[in-house]
């Protein structure tokens, strides 16, 4: 495809509704126990708040309706009748008492939800080490056996029904991990290690987005969490552990050579080649991901080409520089990347 056709194709890709699959991101439609506990507390607290809100407005409306009208010249009531004042004082005290009781209910509900969140069973958990960068997510799937550890970026796959423990680090500024359908958020703070645990109980694609302002492209630092049945997850993990295969296609081979001799390998790693830098997303299985550029674009050859050619046009401020490859070279590199499933 010619270079000047890239832009319109890109625009078409962005506009198309099939650009990426519909991904759930709703705190009130929980897909796992953590989000479910929070949603239950939410409904209890909102119900209480709604009742209080209506009661206060009703009291106000009643007060305004029954009080007689007056002018500026109406003499003020300097000494209101004490009996009436006492009656109203009792009313205020009762209303206050009710409010205090409701506050205690919310407090108790909050604390017990805290405990429920902290008591997620963690046996047989998947361990992921997540590092936030400006503006992408680096994920390492930990394993007691070192040769079973693998790296990926921006897209997490998790098995349905098994807990996931995510250790959170940041490489630069504060980010925040938030997948509303699955759990509340946790900040990734430089110099500190945090941890979040969740479990997906339904298969599906759950969308997350960085929730702590982290600079120019905070708006485009998405994270997909894809929950799969255990068998599919195991297969996916196995595939991720495999190094990149040597491409058969000559164009792809040429693309690989360009990748390894150019600037790409200075930041990106591909297992099975000499590229092992970790300052940009791991590309060993990039073609297996649904989206690229931390969720900015659907993962299509046209979008990959546009992204490699000029990341700044798509995500201004991103740390990836433009790559002024000749169109044939660009397509070769893209062809190579397409083999990295």
């Amino acid at each position, binding site marked *: 495809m010619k270079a000047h056709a890239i832009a319109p194709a890109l625009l078409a890709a962005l506009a198309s*509704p099939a650009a990426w699959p519909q*991904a759930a*991101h*709703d*705190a009130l439609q929980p897909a796992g126990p953590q989000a479910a506990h*929070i949603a239950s507390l*939410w409904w209890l*607290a909102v119900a209480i*708040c709604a009742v*209080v*809100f209506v009661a*206060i407005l009703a009291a*106000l409306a009643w007060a*305004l309706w029954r*009080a*007689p*009208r*007056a*002018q*500026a010249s*109406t003499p*003020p*009531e*300097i000494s*209101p009748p004490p009996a009436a*004042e006492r009656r*109203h004082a009792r009313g*205020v005290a009762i*209303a*206050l008492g009710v*409010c*205090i009781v409701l506050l205690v209910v*919310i*407090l108790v*509900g909050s*604390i017990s*939800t*805290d405990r429920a969140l902290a008591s997620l069973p963690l046996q047989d958990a998947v361990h992921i080490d997540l590092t936030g960068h400006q503006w992408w997510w680096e994920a390492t799937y930990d394993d007691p056996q070192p040769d079973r550890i693998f790296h990926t970026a921006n897209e997490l796959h998790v098995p349905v029904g098994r807990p996931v423990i995510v250790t959170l680090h940041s490489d630069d*500024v*504060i980010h*925040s991990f938030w997948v*509303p359908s699955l759990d*509340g*958020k*946790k*900040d990734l*703070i430089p*110099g*500190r*290690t*945090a941890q979040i645990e969740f479990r997906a109980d339904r298969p599906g694609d759950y969308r*997350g*987005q960085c*929730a*702590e*302002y982290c*600079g120019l492209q905070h*708006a485009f630092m998405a994270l997909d969490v894809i929950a799969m049945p255990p068998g599919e997850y195991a297969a996916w993990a196995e595939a991720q552990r495999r190094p990149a295969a040597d491409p058969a296609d000559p164009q792809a081979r040429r693309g690989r050579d360009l990748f390894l001799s150019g600037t790409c390998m200075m930041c990106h790693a591909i297992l099975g080649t000499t590229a092992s830098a970790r300052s940009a997303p791991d590309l060993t299985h990039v073609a297996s991901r649904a989206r690229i550029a931390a969720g900015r674009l659907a993962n299509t050859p046209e979008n990959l080409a546009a992204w490699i050619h000029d990341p700044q046009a798509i995500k*201004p*401020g991103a740390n990836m520089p433009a790559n002024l490859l000749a169109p044939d070279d660009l397509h070769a590199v893209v062809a190579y990347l397409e083999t990295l499933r």
Partner: protein
Amino acid sequence: MSAPRETLRDGDGPGSRAAETLAMTWRTPKGIVGWLSNIDHKSTGKRFIVTAFAFFLAAAFLAALMRTQLVVPDNHFVGPDLYNQLFTMHGTTMMFLFAVPMMQGMSLYFVPLMVGTRNTAFPRMSASAYWIYLVGGLTLYAGFLCNTGADAGWFAYVPLAGPQYGIGKRSDFWNVLVNFSEAMGLMVAVDLATVILKMRAPGMSLRRMPIFAWATLVTSIMIIFAMPTVMLGANLVQLDRMLGTHFFNPGAGGDVILWQHLFWFFGHPEVYFIFIPGLAFISSIIPTFARRPMFGHDAVVLSLISTGFLSFGLWVHHMFATNVPDVGKSFFTAMSLMIAIPTAVQIFCWIATLATGRIQWRPPLLYVLAFFFILVLGGLSGLLLGSVPIDLQVHDSYFVVAHLHYVLIGGAVFPLFGAFYYWFPKITGRMMDERIAKWTFWIMFIGFNVTFFPMHILGLHGMPRRIYTYAAQSGWGTLNLVATVGAFIMGWSVLLFVANVLAGLWRGKPAGENPWGAGTLEWSVPSPPPPYNFVRIPVVSSREPLWSREEGAPTHVSGLSAQTREGLVTTVIDALPDVRYGYPRPTIWPFFAALAVSLWLDWSIFSTQGFVWGLIPPAIAFIGWFWPREKATAEALALEKAP
């Protein structure tokens, strides 16, 4: 000391020789130099009010730009860099350059009138604070207009605002703005606290003091204890940025979260600096328009005091998503829920006042009634945010944007607009148009809810804060469109309000002394008040001096000099006359000192040398300010009497 020579003293009523001499003594200085030398609290107060409103309009304009960018998905109206500056400037302006100065300005204008004195305790200090504020705000905007606007959010978290990631001078402008605005806030707070404690009219014991004065006292004391923290923090960030210190560098023993602790220890009380005056406006307006004293006056005062205290114990609720220990977080949930109680007390007392009163349906009351809908809704969403699990879902999302606007606009801005309608006649001598006021109210109310209610839902649907755009597939487009439409409706109401102000100034009906039949002392003087406020300092014997007084009690003070600017210092609890106080005369030194301090601060943005050498002009200015003058000393000696 020798006995005082014969001096003409006040005590005779309006039209007497003493009154005329008083008017001459206190006359407003003329010309440009006079305007810069004016230290009348009413002049300082008006400057704060007008300037703060101008910043409000600027910040509202920035918000309109933001809402335009977010009206449809994938919009290209502004790019990420400008958008990040827009939301930072919007928040910083609203919080530092509009809300707190506006509330302090209203207090500066009205507190001396309400407590029955002729000026504040340190009028030169507040006058100087105004110029520092003005230059500080202009400095921030100068940076913005030169594409160096602060862009790390209004709470400037490190490391994003730190030396490594906060590139250029943008965060330097923000840190220095904090110094400007907090210096101003602290100076005015000390002045207000002192005038309230020590210069009330005789007979105005603490129990008789108006709720507005109590609220100002509580706010001022809170400011004294909270603002130094953010000044310290911002200067520590500047030290990291300019000198290479390591306060926020975890690689050298520092800590990123420390900034959040320092900022929010200030930041949470800060919202109460804005909210408590809003409560005070309501407590001033409701009794007048219900034609009766406040129901549960003492309970309302105690609620304000306890709100002040409790607000210092909430700050970690802004940090629930960090890894501060979980055990501590529940404590902050409990405190965050507890602070609802004193607010609830005030709400119930207001309802009881209205229920047992006789209602005067006028615009100030209408704006105050909006509080019951908007603030209460915002306060309830605040309870939701106070609970750790719920907060972990909606923190840093549009739910918080909805909450903060509901509480700030419902709890402060609507009451403020009510206060404008209430006190405009006193400040200007004219009434605003009531029909336009009602239109403005409804348009603002509807526009506000259309703008901000959908944001609760957007937050629950995963839309984070501070994003310059979003994809169509997010499904956030429809509600964002609705919010933007609402924002423009609100914008129209603000413009309508400005038009009403101008029309009122131009050809509003003459207001007279007390158009609303209110009970507090500011309504006993002409509209607008003369420079000396009261021909004779009043003596009060009840909470609403214009509504009642004790039979046989004295009504006014006599014996203060009419030939020099004299006021009365009274005792703290019972306001017994104690000492005669010679006010400073108009002087341009506070203006020069403010310029010198501003030069020092602005210079320090660009140079660490500036931080040291820039101290010399302020030192000279302060000496010039305080050095006694021969003439003033001779006048004082003529009236001197040792304790």
